[in-house]
């Protein structure tokens, strides 16, 4: 049995500070287990949001030693225990209390995105798709909405452009709809304007922190950028539009 020290951020919207907690840890524990142990024994009123403990609900997002991660999927065996482990709430969203942040901005952004508008069924009554098309969209549907990509994205985190940029999560969501061969809606104008896709400069931080290992930048954002450029910035098309 080993002893580890956790520096956990305690506070609320009006401010806070790191508090040191020392606790026993055993083989097989994850950060969330340690946080729960501290909560049960030393800090009953500490706020932490969690549900599944299996990396599938996306509730326990936090920053562990400065890295955006799911607390339930971060094993203590992969962190050096000889120095204190910092655990703090996500920086990009308003703080509620301790490790819990208010992520409701994300839900409001999602509501603005044009819904799936399916084509009529094929003559035989089905919506048959090519397997390649299914696989492409299926990757995006692995998203658990932990919002770690939103947290790490400098456009939101450092430049605070929450009103002008929808963030990697919702570029991905747009991609899942746009690349669905059964969809009839066109979201390219929204992506360019209210979506702010041009703000993304492909630093790939979102891809790096994604616990579902979705290739957000390569498979979703870049193809969308290409479509937007094709639609609005292609000089030949522009010329064609002038004369038509």
């Amino acid at each position, binding site marked *: 049995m080993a002893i580890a020290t956790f520096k956990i951020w305690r506070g609320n919207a009006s401010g806070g500070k790191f508090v040191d907690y020392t606790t026993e840890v055993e083989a097989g524990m994850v950060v969330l287990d340690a946080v729960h142990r501290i*909560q049960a024994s030393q800090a*009953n009123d500490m*706020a932490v949001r969690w549900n599944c403990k299996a990396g599938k609900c996306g509730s326990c997002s936090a920053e562990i030693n400065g890295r955006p991660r799911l607390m339930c999927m971060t094993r203590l065996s992969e962190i050096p225990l000889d120095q204190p482990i910092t655990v703090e709430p996500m920086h990009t969203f308003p703080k*509620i209390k301790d490790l819990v942040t208010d992520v409701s901005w994300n839900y409001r952004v999602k509501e603005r995105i044009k819904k799936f508008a399916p084509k009529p069924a094929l003559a035989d009554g089905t919506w048959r798709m090519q397997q390649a098309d299914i696989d492409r969209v299926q990757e995006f549907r692995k998203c658990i909405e932990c919002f770690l990509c939103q947290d790490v994205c400098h456009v939101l985190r450092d430049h605070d452009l929450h009103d002008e940029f929808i963030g990697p999560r919702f570029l991905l969501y747009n991609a899942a709809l746009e690349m669905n061969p059964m969809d009839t809606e066109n979201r390219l104008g929204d992506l360019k304007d209210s979506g702010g896709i041009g703000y993304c400069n492909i630093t790939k931080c979102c891809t790096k922190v994604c616990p579902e290992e979705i290739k957000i930048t390569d498979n979703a954002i870049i193809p969308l950028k290409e479509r937007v450029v094709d639609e609005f910035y292609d000089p030949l098309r522009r010329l064609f539009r002038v004369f038509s």
Partner: protein
Amino acid sequence: MVFGQRAGEFAAKFAKAHSAGRIDHAFVEKVAQNALGPFDRGAAGENPFAVQHELQEMMQDLVGIVRVESEMESALGEIAKLKARAAQAGIAGNREYNNGWHTALDLDNLLTVSEIIARAAIERKESRGAHFRDDYPDKSEDWAKYNIRVSKSPAGDPKVERVPVKPLTDEHKQVIEENK
């Protein structure tokens, strides 16, 4: 969808046939006071997480996979002790996202469910499905005739009753026969 439609239809009928219920404000006030009790006792009260953890361990040990009457009887004694401690649960801080407070409020329900499980398991003196009793290891034909119903007695504690299983209707028998 079938059940949703039925539920909606009969709820609407019921609502039309009855006027709105009267709210007992004194009762609401009492419930609210109870809910805030852990803050009055503060951090000096019982640790709600500790009570929850001990209840989990105790139920695992005494009313777990393999059950014996004597162990389940002693579980009832432990539940009574934990109930007394849960009534003294205290918590620091305020109502804002306070996991400890939520746990303190959960204790009541956890203890009620634990007691119902233990009492019903004591009543069923046979082994059936996931209910395995070391002291009654066999399935009993006689017990197949009863369900166990636990309801709230006027005094508030759980009342355990054997309710005869309704005989199969001819329609049910026919369905079973057709699917054999």
